[in-house]
Each structure stands twice: as structure tokens, then as C-alpha cells.
């Protein structure tokens, strides 16, 4: 095959030349060219190697359905593999490379598989390696080298991708004649219209044809439509593909502002993802031509007939010198005329039908060698192009020489979006096409996509000639699936089309079987002896064409991946250069190392400071809710599993909340801050869940209660001051009556800032939580630093807090409150409100949650050596786990190590010796089961 450029015609700009490289070689093209059309014009035949057999491949189509001519394009982080050369418009400086070949495209070692080896049949990997693990280990290296489609980029994508939302009355997808007509009539009725087209130009199939439309040449009709639509303010987006049709008429669009691999202008985005909500969607997505099944139908030089016509009429490229047209319908005859008019010799038209009464066939018979009852059996040629073909003509063999074989197996309406929107299809037995039938959403399909081109199709094109070499007759070109693979799957008992798809990989390539699915289905239907619709269809999934992951991510990459929530004291912490611990979206200091301290040594020093002197920790991120109203106490009795109603004003209490299934959800403290006003705290990570839960109780379960809830998590910033000298430190800043007793509250001023002081202890020491409004807290922290230094005080982080609370035996959400533990399991059941008006009470009465037998109960663990975090509790190593460790740490002031954990029937096993064993950390420790409160069990230290 030797392609060449015609002197005139098409929608390319011959006055300008674009230079680009393919596999390092310089080529030229014109604005309006695709990479495929420009390379065909330069006489290129071989574009790449196939996925599995490394067979030589050329260009098959002129659109997004291309399965063969896949290239890598761009440099560095902009490199994009598997880009269709037929869907890539050239630009100055374009760098493209062929794929799946080594060391070079013309001499590919991988093709040896295709030449000498037996073809890898369907299910090869399943069978070859089933039950032989050693074999896989041996071959994996070689298979991994040979496998894969293209190569991934090796650098981060430097481009910007943007997301945008839009609304319209009518969204028209596809700007061919049907789409343009739909946009014209909708806009004439005054509707707000959006028209999107995946091509760089509107017009669709009109660029392929030479016939007039409504008395005008195609290009003139397009120009007129454009002028009208622009005048009516229709929003038109070209190079924009509708990739998904979602619920309630939302369509996502992928807009390419630059071509793949192209560098955008400074500050401009490369691609834009649109989410369009339309009142009505018109699908004018056209139809895709199908290839014919015969041996070596994948050879370079075998092209779809409409694609050939597109190259001639749109790009001014004649892809061969001697052409044969093989068809089952009238439409491909147009290709013969287009080729002949462009100076290509048309050797023959081979029509598998026995006759056709149409005018174009009569006209063709007068000019060309038209043969009916003719079927191609085999294409001949190789990497250098086509040399000829073997056919059967009314039972007689026929051999023809040619360098271009234009094939048409009929067309398949593009029903992808219709199906994504939940529509159904209707099968036409005569034409062999599925066309949209019943829509589910506000969608309507028009034009060729609605079956308007069914006259150009015939089910004959779906049937392979008898006696054809099925092993070399390709159905799915991109995944190298042959007729023989489908036959084999059927012989092996695969009946469901979804199973055949996965076993053979039919339709699973990046083209999602646009040219192959119906051909494969027809083969399966013939084997089954059932009509095609009964065989069924596989699911149409978005995106319609491949999109870059960058487009889906938009700006949500790197530091913009998620929000960062900084507590009001963040800047003060930053000056100390702490180790940070993200807690949900919050950034919280984990420890404040000094000198060359490690996390562990810093945390141990901070914990000792709290036990021996005084420390302060930022607790601003705790969940906090104000509950107010005449029924506030009644409301809290429903939310909290402990008694709240008798709480005196100015007092607080530890509490925990249950889920409806009786499992502990969260814990915190509840404070009566006014006659009908309470403050409820929850864990940092559980704050959002608690907000939802409180809203649920108030609105759904107890709407009769007169109560209001305000989420004040971010309003009140807080510092916990803990240690034997905490009261001394506070006394330096607050007048004596202002210092509350344990579990009492006081309002005062520190450094001139109004504060709320809650006396509660998490560490086990005398402690106060000081709350102030947002960033007002900053001078309070500064005052603590200034006043606390000579007392030996310092700030401490979450790591020290963890060590302190484990030693004290306090539970934590996400640790012991793990979504599985009941109040009994956590030894909190004595605090349960006996009146049981609370959420979770009905489920908690179930016998399974009442009886302790066999349940994991919280225990303490003691050891002389470090207890591995996350280890399991076993009698012997290795052994059956009887429980696990939830949190472990070193004792703060004494020797030894302690941990909290769960052990089956653990509360009855105190004194038992077990192993804490972590095979993943390769660590273990001998532990003794003890009561989980290791430090000050009488609670003397935090009381006055």
C-alpha cells in the first residue's frame, strides 16, 4: 500500500505545513490532519504491533473506534500511551512513537510468538499455570516483559485539569447532520442548547460524503448551520466527548483544549471535565462501521470502507493504488467511487449479497468489476502492506492482487450513552444491528445512532465464510481475540456472554469492543443456535472513550487532594517544628522533639513532664456541641448511655454514646453550662458522625423535644493543662475561686481572654481544659508557656497523650472503641443509665450482648519487654489468636511496659500468662493479664 495526497479537496489547510516526528523520524502534515492521515499521506503502512501476538498493524478506521494504530505521544510527564492515531490531530512539534515493538517497529522480536509459536489460545494463562505455582514463578519475568499495552509515563503530569458545571435545556451530543439539525430546531424554539462534538470540527459524516444535503454541498450546509447556531447563542464545544450519561440526565464531558502531549499556553488548562445537567438530551452519536471476519483481516492495508472514504474526501489522502472493496451493503460502493475519482484503481467490488436493486450498485456495475456472492477468505501481505487476497466467488476460488482492501461488515449504532442512561436496545435481524429502543431518562436518539443508517448494514457481514481460517480471523483487534478463541470458549462450556467476554478478553481493550462486540456476539449466537438478543449484551460502561486520570482528578491532586484543617494554635506549634499527626483532616502535633530526640524519647519526656510537673496539649479539635432548650436534658438522655438528667449546673460527667445496635460509638464529657444549656464533647475523628447522629435523634427520633443543637467544634479552641502542678500554674493566672474542682467548670479570664475552664482528666493527673473563642486562645497558650516554664512544664503532643491514657486505662475511639465493643466489653456497663431511655438500649438487651461468654473483653497487659502494637494474644507461638493488643506503651515513671487489648472472656482470666505475638513485625512479648488501670486506680491524683 502506498498512500498519497490528492491535490485538492477535504478540510485540511494545504497552505501550511506542520512538522512532527514518529519513532524519531521527521514527517510533514497539514492543519486538520490526524496523525493517521498525515502518516498515510507520507506512505506509511505499519503503525504498531498488536498486544498479544505482536502482529503488524496499520490503520483500520478514521475515528475514536481505532483498535490498531495506537501510539505513545508526548514527552516526560505529558507522555500518553495508547492514543489512537486516528483521534490525534497533529500540531507543530508533536512527538509520537509506535508501541509493543522491540527493538524496532520493523524488526520485532515479540512477533516471533506470532510466527513460530502456537497462538496463545483463550484461557491460556488459566490453563498453563493452574496448580503449577513453580511454573508461574519461572515464566513470570518473561511474560511481564511481553505483556502490557504501551508504557506508562514516568514523570508526574505537569498540566492543569479543570472541572466545571453547566446547565441547559437541551444537550445535543454529536454534531453530524442529525445533531446539527436537532440543535437548529431546539434553538429555534428558544431553548438553551449545548452542542458537543468529539471531533475538531462539526459536521460528522458530512466530511466523508460528497453528496449534497438539502440542496447544498456538505461544507456549505455546515457553514450555514454554524452561522445560525452562533447567532442564536448556542453553546458549542468541539473536541469535547460525552463520556458518561449518569442519573437524572447528568452527562459528563471531556474537553480537550490541547491535543494529547501538546503543551498548553502559559497558565491554561489542558483538559476540562464538564458535568452538564440537561432537561433533555439528544444523542446524535452516529454509527461505527464493522470489519469483516476473514483470515488475516488485521493486516496493514485492510481498512474500513467508510474510513477509506473519509481519508479521501476529508483529508485528501488516498491510502492505496490498487483497491478492492469487500462489502455486504450498498454504502461501501460510495468508497469505490471516491477512490476511483481520486485516481486509485478499483480492482473489484466483492459483495456477499446475491444482488442489490439500488441505483448506486447499478451505477457501480457500469464502471467497476462488481461481483456478487463473493466473500473474502484471506488477506495476503505483511508488515510492508497488502499484496492481495483470496476470495470465494459463487463457490469458485478467486485470487486478486491489491494494496488496499476496503471492508464493510455493516454498521453498529453508537448506543453507549443511551445504554448508560438505562435504555434498552432493539435487534434488527436483517441488518444485524442493535438500535436504541426504550429510553429511561429524558433522552432521545436521532440519526444513524437511532438506526438511521441501518440501510447501510446487513447481517451477512457478521457471518464468517465457511472454511475460513478461524485462528487468524480477528474479531477484537486490540486484544487479539480471534473467531477460534470464541469457539474454544464455547466448546469449554462458557455460555454467558459476560463469561465469554472475560475468558477471551473480547471487548475488554481500551476501545471497549466498538468494532468487535457485535461480530463476537453473532459468532456466539451462531454456535448456540439462538438469536443474537438471547445471547445478550455486555454492559456499556463510561467512559465512552479513554480519558486521562488527570482529567478525573482535576485539581484534587497533591496538597489539594483533601482539605487541611489547621487548629487556631497551628502557627504557634509550627514555630516549635513538631512532628505532625494528621487526625482526620486536622493537623495536630504528635510530639515536640528537642535536639536529637526521637519520637519515642520526646514523647516519653513529655509524658514524664505531665506525671511529675505540668504539661499542656492542644485539644481544640475535639468534637463539641451545645445543646440548649427546655428538653435539653431529656434529649441528652437519649443520646448518652449514662445518666445526665441529675447533673447539677456547673458540673460535668464522663459519658459515652451507643449506636442503635448497642455498640459503643463515641465517648466524651457532658457539662451543664446553664440551667437549660449543656456542652457535649466527642472524639475529634467522630465529630462529623456525631453531628449527623444528633441531627438524626432530634429530627427523626425525638422531634417533639424542645431542643436546639449547635456544632461548636471550631468555635471553641481548647488547651488541656495536666500534671501535679497544673493547679499551681492555673493559680498564677486565675484568681483562686476561679479554679474549679474535679468535674466542675468555671468561667474566668486568662491573659485578658474570657475562658471556660472544665476540670477533667484524661491523663490521670489533675487537669483542666481551658476553652476560648477560636484564635482568642493564642495568648492563653503564650501565658502558659511563660508562666509554666519555671514549674518544669512544657507542651506535649498526641504521642505522650497516648502513653498517658494507656497507662491510665482510658479508652479511645478508634482504639478500644472499635465499632465492635459493647459497654460490657469495655467495662463501662456499670455507668449505663438503668432507666435505659437511650439509643442502643433495645438492642443491648439482646442475650448475645448481655452474656459475656465468649466475647472479647478489654484487659490490661503487663510485660518486662515492649509489647508489639497490633499483636495477637496466643498461648503458644504460632497459635490460635484469643485476642489482640489495641494500644501499647512504656510505663512513664516505673520500669516495664503496659498495653490495652481485648481477650476472649478476658475479665475472668486475670493473672494468666500469654504471648503477644506479631508475625508481621516479627516481634513478641510475654504478657500477664491484669486489670486495665495501671496508674492510680483509686483516682487520687486528679482530685483535690
Amino acid at each position, binding site marked *: 500500500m502506498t498512500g498519497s495526497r490528492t491535490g485538492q479537496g477535504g478540510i485540511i489547510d494545504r497552505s501550511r505545513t506542520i512538522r512532527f516526528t514518529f519513532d524519531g523520524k521527521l514527517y510533514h502534515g497539514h492543519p486538520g490532519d490526524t496523525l493517521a492521515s498525515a502518516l498515510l499521506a507520507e506512505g506509511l503502512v505499519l503503525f504498531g504491533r498488536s498486544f498479544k501476538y505482536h502482529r503488524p498493524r496499520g490503520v483500520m478506521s478514521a475515528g475514536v473506534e481505532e483498535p490498531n494504530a495506537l501510539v505513545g505521544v508526548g514527552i516526560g510527564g505529558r507522555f500518553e500511551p495508547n492514543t489512537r492515531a486516528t483521534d490525534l490531530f497533529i500540531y507543530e512539534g508533536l512527538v509520537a512513537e509506535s508501541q509493543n515493538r522491540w527493538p524496532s517497529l520493523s524488526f520485532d522480536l515479540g512477533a516471533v510468538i506470532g510466527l513460530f509459536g502456537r497462538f496463545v489460545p483463550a484461557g491460556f494463562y488459566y490453563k498453563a499455570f493452574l496448580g503449577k505455582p513453580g511454573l508461574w514463578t519461572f515464566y513470570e519475568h518473561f511474560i511481564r516483559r511481553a505483556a502490557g499495552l504501551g508504557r506508562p509515563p514516568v514523570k508526574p503530569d505537569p498540566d492543569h485539569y479543570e472541572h466545571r458545571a453547566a446547565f441547559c435545556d437541551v444537550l445535543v451530543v454529536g454534531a453530524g447532520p442529525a445533531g446539527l439539525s436537532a440543535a437548529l430546531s431546539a434553538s429555534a424554539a428558544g431553548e438553551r442548547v449545548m452542542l458537543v462534538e468529539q471531533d475538531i470540527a462539526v459536521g460528522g459524516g458530512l466530511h466523508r460524503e460528497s453528496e449534497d444535503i438539502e440542496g447544498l454541498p456538505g461544507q456549505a450546509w455546515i457553514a450555514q448551520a454554524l452561522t445560525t447556531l452562533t447567532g442564536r447563542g448556542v453553546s458549542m464545544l468541539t473536541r469535547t466527548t460525552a463520556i458518561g450519561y*449518569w*442519573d*437524572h*440526565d*447528568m452527562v459528563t464531558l471531556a474537553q480537550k483544549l490541547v491535543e494529547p502531549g501538546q503543551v498548553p499556553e502559559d497558565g491554561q488548562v489542558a483538559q476540562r471535565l464538564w*458535568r452538564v*445537567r440537561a432537561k433533555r438530551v439528544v444523542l446524535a452519536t452516529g454509527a461505527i462501521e464493522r470489519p469483516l471476519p476473514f483470515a488475516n483481516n488485521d493486516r496493514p492495508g485492510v481498512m474500513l470502507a467508510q474510513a477509506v472514504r473519509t481519508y479521501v474526501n476529508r483529508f485528501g489522502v488516498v491510502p492505496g493504488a490498487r483497491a478492492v472493496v469487500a462489502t455486504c451493503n450498498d454504502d461501501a460502493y460510495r468508497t469505490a467511487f471516491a477512490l476511483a475519482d481520486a485516481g486509485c484503481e478499483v480492482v473489484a467490488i466483492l459483495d456477499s449479497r446475491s444482488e442489490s436493486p439500488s441505483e448506486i450498485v447499478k451505477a457501480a456495475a457500469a464502471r467497476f468489476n462488481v461481483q456478487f456472492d463473493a466473500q473474502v477468505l484471506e488477506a495476503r501481505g505483511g508488515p510492508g502492506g497488502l499484496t492481495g487476497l483470496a476470495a470465494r466467488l459463487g463457490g469458485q476460488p478467486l485470487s486478486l492482487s491489491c494494496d488496499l482492501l476496503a471492508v464493510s461488515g455493516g454498521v453498529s449504532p453508537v448506543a453507549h450513552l443511551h445504554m448508560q442512561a*438505562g435504555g434498552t436496545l432493539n435487534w434488527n435481524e436483517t441488518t444485524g444491528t442493535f438500535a436504541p429502543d426504550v429510553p*429511561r431518562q429524558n433522552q432521545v436518539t436521532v440519526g444513524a445512532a437511532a438506526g438511521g443508517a441501518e440501510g447501510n448494514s446487513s447481517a451477512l457481514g457478521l457471518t464468517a465464510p465457511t472454511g475460513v481460517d478461524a485462528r487468524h480471523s480477528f474479531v477484537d483487534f486490540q486484544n487479539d481475540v480471534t473467531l477460534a478463541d470464541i469457539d474454544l470458549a464455547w466448546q469449554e462450556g462458557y455460555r454467558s456472554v459476560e463469561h465469554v467476554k472475560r475468558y477471551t478478553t473480547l471487548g475488554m481493550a481500551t476501545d471497549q469492543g466498538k468494532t468487535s462486540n457485535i461480530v463476537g456476539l453473532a459468532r456466539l449466537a451462531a454456535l448456540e443456535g439462538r438469536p443474537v438478543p438471547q445471547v445478550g449484551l455486555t454492559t456499556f460502561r463510561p467512559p465512552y472513550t479513554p480519558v486521562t486520570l488527570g482529567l478525573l482528578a482535576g485539581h484534587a491532586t497533591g496538597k489539594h487532594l483533601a482539605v487541611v484543617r489547621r487548629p487556631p494554635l497551628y502557627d504557634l506549634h509550627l514555630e516549635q517544628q513538631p512532628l505532625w499527626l494528621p487526625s482526620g483532616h486536622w493537623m495536630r502535633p504528635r510530639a515536640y522533639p528537642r535536639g536529637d530526640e526521637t519520637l519515642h524519647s520526646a514523647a516519653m519526656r513529655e509524658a514524664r513532664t505531665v506525671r511529675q510537673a505540668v504539661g499542656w496539649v492542644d485539644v481544640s479539635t475535639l468534637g463539641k456541641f451545645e445543646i440548649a432548650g427546655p428538653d435539653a436534658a431529656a434529649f441528652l438522655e*437519649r443520646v448518652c448511655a449514662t445518666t445526665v438528667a441529675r447533673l447539677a449546673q456547673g458540673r460535668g460527667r464522663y459519658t459515652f454514646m451507643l449506636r*442503635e*445496635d448497642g455498640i459503643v460509638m463515641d465517648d466524651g464529657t457532658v457539662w451543664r453550662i446553664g440551667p437549660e444549656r449543656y456542652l457535649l464533647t466527642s472524639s475529634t475523628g467522630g465529630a462529623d458522625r456525631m453531628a*449527623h447522629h444528633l*441531627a*438524626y435523634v432530634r*429530627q*427523626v*427520633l*425525638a*422531634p417533639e423535644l424542645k431542643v436546639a443543637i449547635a456544632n461548636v467544634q471550631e468555635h471553641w479552641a481548647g488547651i488541656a493543662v495536666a500534671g501535679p502542678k497544673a493547679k499551681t500554674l492555673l493559680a498564677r493566672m486565675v484568681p483562686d475561686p476561679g479554679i474549679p474542682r474535679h468535674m466542675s467548670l468555671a468561667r474566668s479570664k486568662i491573659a485578658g481572654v474570657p475562658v471556660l475552664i472544665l476540670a477533667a482528666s484524661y491523663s490521670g493527673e489533675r487537669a483542666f481544659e481551658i476553652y476560648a473563642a477560636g484564635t482568642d486562645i493564642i495568648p492563653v497558650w503564650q501565658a502558659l508557656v511563660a508562666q509554666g516554664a519555671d514549674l518544669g512544664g512544657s507542651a506535649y503532643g498526641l504521642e505522650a497523650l497516648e502513653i498517658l491514657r494507656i497507662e491510665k486505662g482510658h479508652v479511645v475511639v478508634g482504639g478500644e472503641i472499635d465499632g465492635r465493643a459493647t459497654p460490657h466489653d469495655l467495662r463501662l456497663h456499670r455507668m449505663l443509665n438503668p432507666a435505659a*431511655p*437511650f*439509643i442502643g*438500649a*433495645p*438492642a443491648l*438487651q*439482646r442475650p448475645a450482648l448481655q452474656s459475656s461468654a465468649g466475647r472479647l473483653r478489654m484487659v490490661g497487659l503487663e510485660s518486662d519487654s515492649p509489647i508489639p502494637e497490633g499483636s495477637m494474644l496466643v498461648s503458644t507461638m504460632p497459635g490460635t489468636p484469643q485476642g489482640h493488643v489495641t494500644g501499647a506503651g512504656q510505663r512513664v515513671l516505673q520500669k516495664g511496659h503496659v498495653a490495652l487489648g481485648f481477650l476472649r472472656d478476658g475479665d475472668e482470666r486475670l493473672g494468666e500468662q500469654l504471648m503477644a505475638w506479631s508475625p508481621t513485625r516479627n516481634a513478641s512479648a510475654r504478657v500477664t493479664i491484669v486489670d486495665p488501670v495501671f496508674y492510680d486506680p483509686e483516682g487520687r491524683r486528679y482530685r483535690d
Partner: protein
Amino acid sequence: MQLIACPHCGPRAQAEFEFDRAVDSVLALDASPAEAVTRLYERENPKGWSWELWRHSAGCGVFLKLHRHTVTHEIAEVSRLDAAP
């Protein structure tokens, strides 16, 4: 993405809402343990029309009752909980 017509805020994208539960799994505070089992664990999970509770979390924060088809995602009705049945 579904479009939910909030009675307070108008039609808004699903991303602003949180699905909470099917209405038949709302468990009254004074329910019996047996009823808790039925409501929490032995639910209908219908393939078809379902009454559901959603909350307009990123909007007005109100819980809404939706009559929604679990296959087609059609929404026949969106109402406030205190609306007359």
C-alpha cells in the same frame, strides 16, 4: 449523579446529601429487643420503590423522606418528615 429536590433549597446535586437509611429501619427509642433485630438486621432491601431517609448535610441539614426506585433511581417524592402523610 442524582438530582434531589430539597423542599427548602430546591433541586440540588446528590453530592450535597447523605443517605441515612431506609425508613423501615428507623428504630423507635422504646422498641423491644425483638423489634430492634427486625428493624436493624431483617430489612427489606427492595429491588424497586423504597422509602428512604436522606439528609441535606451540605445544605439545610434537614432529614428528608424520599420515595426512590433502587434500580432506576427515579425519585417520585421528596418530603419533610413533618409533612402530612
